[in-house]
């Protein structure tokens, strides 16, 4: 049984709030330097940086997942993770199509650019990605599980966009885990016995990658073994 370090919540250049320094190339380089073995790219309502991220992770022999941090209609942030790039890109289209038609304001929210593995800009997303989609938490659970992914409400204990603030308590849904915010040292969320708890960096700046991670015990790194580790509760929040 090996013990690996996983950071499953990382933003890149396409997220409205992330710095342009968060190219997939930089993220992979910092993740390697910090000894992470499993990383996931989770931009706000968008998967367009996943192809570059997957290509770089493959080159660097770093196990990766992709997906998005989706804002549901209830304004909860929810991590949706998959291991198959084709499914990730189709899922990204589904999520973007459910955003309201509100254009991004670059001076306020940044350029929302997506890049290739050489850090060359391929384009920018016109819609403002920080908005809430029209997808409910229930619908999102079905959409993710139908596609073979895992669904983890993000920073459930944060006062903004956290599920407990938005919905009062964690609703009865088939979540694969709950994410505790990285700065919360003593999480008491009233659902610890029902769901495994993890924590991630939620990084928007390169030096934040891996500042908090979840150690996981598994025979070897794979998506199936990650799912099993969550089911067994073989996950431990640690600080980098």
């Amino acid at each position, binding site marked *: 049984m090996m013990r690996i370090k996983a950071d499953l919540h990382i933003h890149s250049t396409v997220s409205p709030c992330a710095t342009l320094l968060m190219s997939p190339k930089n993220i992979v380089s910092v993740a390697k330097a910090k000894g992470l073995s499993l990383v996931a790219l989770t931009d706000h309502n968008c998967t367009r940086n996943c192809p570059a991220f997957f290509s770089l992770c493959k080159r660097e022999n770093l196990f990766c997942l992709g997906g998005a941090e989706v804002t549901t209609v209830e304004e909860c942030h929810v991590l949706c993770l998959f291991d198959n790039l084709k499914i990730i890109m189709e899922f990204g289209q589904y999520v973007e199509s459910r955003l309201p038609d509100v254009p991004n304001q670059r001076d306020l929210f940044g350029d929302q650019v997506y890049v290739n593995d050489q850090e060359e800009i391929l384009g920018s997303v016109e819609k403002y990605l920080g908005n809430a989609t029209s997808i409910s938490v229930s619908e999102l659970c079905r959409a993710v599980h139908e596609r073979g992914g895992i669904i983890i409400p993000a920073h459930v204990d944060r006062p903004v966009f956290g599920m407990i*603030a*938005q919905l*009062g*308590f964690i*609703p009865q849904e088939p979540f694969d885990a709950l994410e505790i915010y990285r700065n919360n040292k003593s999480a008491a969320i009233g659902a610890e016995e029902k769901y495994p708890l993890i924590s991630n960096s939620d990084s928007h700046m390169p030096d934040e990658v891996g500042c908090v991670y979840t150690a996981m015990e598994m025979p070897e790194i794979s998506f199936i073994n990650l799912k099993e580790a969550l089911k067994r509760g073989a996950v431990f929040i640690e600080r980098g």
Partner: protein
Amino acid sequence: MTISEMTKLTELTLVQKEFEDGVISGGYTSDLLSDVIANAEANNILITIQAHINTVAVSKLVGIRAIVIANHREVPIDMVEAAQKEKIALFSSTLSQFSLSVLIGKHIHKQ
């Protein structure tokens, strides 16, 4: 103002009719259910866009007798069923939270 009197307001559509009638003493307008738990009062009407089954559970917890879902938001079926079970009146409206607060506030304070 009672809930049955409230059903006569043309701006509101009653989507869950099996409620326990009673006097509405005041209202609370919020979309954050943690805030509703902390600050709303028993016998309030809740005005919100948070169309989720948890809104019913939180209302039950606080003693809220009626919920209005504002701004054309679709009311999910599990929310309607939960409200029916808890005998909480459930309305929908095309008006915003602000307009509903003004409208309902006027009716409550008139009496």
